[in-house]
Every structure is written in structure tokens, then in C-alpha cells.
């Protein structure tokens, strides 16, 4: 059964800190890994990763995938209170048109 595990489940830091969120996966015939940010309701898309070692970057957020070790990390530098959210990791497997989600990391940024 496909599985996605995120750590930590919860993280509280101060504004300005840098955080690293982890996502490990076991999936048959991996196709892609996606990161989402969930604030109040809808998950909003952040990154999609398909190749190992290629960093995706958007402002203060960046992410990288390691297909050999089956994990991805999401980094957020110079955190702001607006970064407070649940961050979700999800994967697509070959032949499976469904995203398998992890349980999420609840990130709280204190001023």
C-alpha cells in the first residue's frame, strides 16, 4: 500500500527562523511528488518534483527530491507569520490517478 509520512507533525518557531519539513514515501512506480499549503480550507499548490537533486524555488520556499532515499524536504527561510499553515506532501504513483497524502506538518510562526 502506498504511504507518505511527514515529520515533524507540528513545529513552532519564531519569525525569521528557517524551517525544514520532511516527507518520506513508499509508492509503487513513483511519478511525482507535490507540496501543498493548507491554511483554512483548500490545499494550495506549491511545488511539483519529478527528478532527483533538482531544487525548485519560489521566493523563500524551496524543495528538493531524493528518489534514491525516497524523501523530499521543503525549506522555508526567513519565516513570516503568514507562513503559518499545514504543509501537505503528496505523491502520484504510476498508473494511479490519485494523490496519496501525508498527514501534514502544522507549522506555527510566532512573532
Amino acid at each position, binding site marked *: 500500500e502506498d504511504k507518505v509520512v511527514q515529520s515533524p507533525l507540528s513545529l513552532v518557531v519564531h519569525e525569521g527562523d528557517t524551517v525544514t519539513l520532511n516527507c518520506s514515501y513508499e509508492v509503487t512506480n513513483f511519478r511525482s511528488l*507535490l507540496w*501543498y499549503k493548507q491554511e483554512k480550507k483548500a*490545499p494550495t499548490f506549491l511545488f*511539483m518534483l519529478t527528478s532527483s537533486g533538482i531544487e525548485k524555488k519560489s521566493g523563500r520556499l524551496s524543495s528538493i527530491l531524493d528518489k534514491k532515499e525516497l524523501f523530499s524536504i521543503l525549506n522555508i527561510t526567513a519565516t513570516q507569520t503568514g507562513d503559518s499553515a499545514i504543509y501537505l506532501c503528496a505523491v*502520484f504513483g504510476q498508473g494511479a*490517478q*490519485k*494523490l496519496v497524502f501525508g*498527514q501534514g506538518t502544522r507549522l506555527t510562526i510566532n512573532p
Partner: protein
Amino acid sequence: EPEVTQTPSHQVTQMGQEVILRCVPISNHLYFYWYRQILGQKVEFLVSFYNNEISEKSEIFDDQFSVERPDGSNFTLKIRSTKLEDSAMYFCASSRSPYTEAFFGQGTRLTVV
């Protein structure tokens, strides 16, 4: 910016009643999905839909559930004979192609009483 829209935002229904949740996917997207999230739990896949038919469904998506694309824009999820455990946030999503970024709607919070 195009977005997935869902209605209603919140629905309260009595156990045993039927509900229809509605979604308008992004207009040039071809793949449509329903997911649900029970409070405090993971987002779970229900069904994917392409070319006017179900392409994949989960074990959750039993005979109680059905999906339809009644016209060129709407995508609906029908839940027959609702149960208390169907209470959840239901998300619709769409993507341009398979295995690529799926964009989610704001969700419908379904409460079965």
C-alpha cells in the same frame, strides 16, 4: 487567475438524506477528482474522472457515491443515504494532465446530523 469553485461551502443534512456537491473545474482541465478530509485526518482520495468516465476510485467510493459531469462545466458528487461518518470536508480538484499539479477548490463542509 482561474480557480476551482465549489458549492455549497457548507451543507447540513439529516442522516439518510441524499446530497449533491457541485464543482466547476478550471476550464481547460481534463482530469477531475474528489477528495475528502475528515476533521483532524489526512486528505483521502475518493475518485478520479476523465473523458466522461471514472478512471480510478478508492475503497471508500462504494455504491453510496456517484459522480457526474452533467454539462461542459459542472462536476458533481452525489452521496446517497448519508451516514454520520460521511461528515467531512469534500474537495474537488482538477488538472490539465495526469500526474501533474492538481488545483483544489475551497471545499464543501458536509455535516450529517
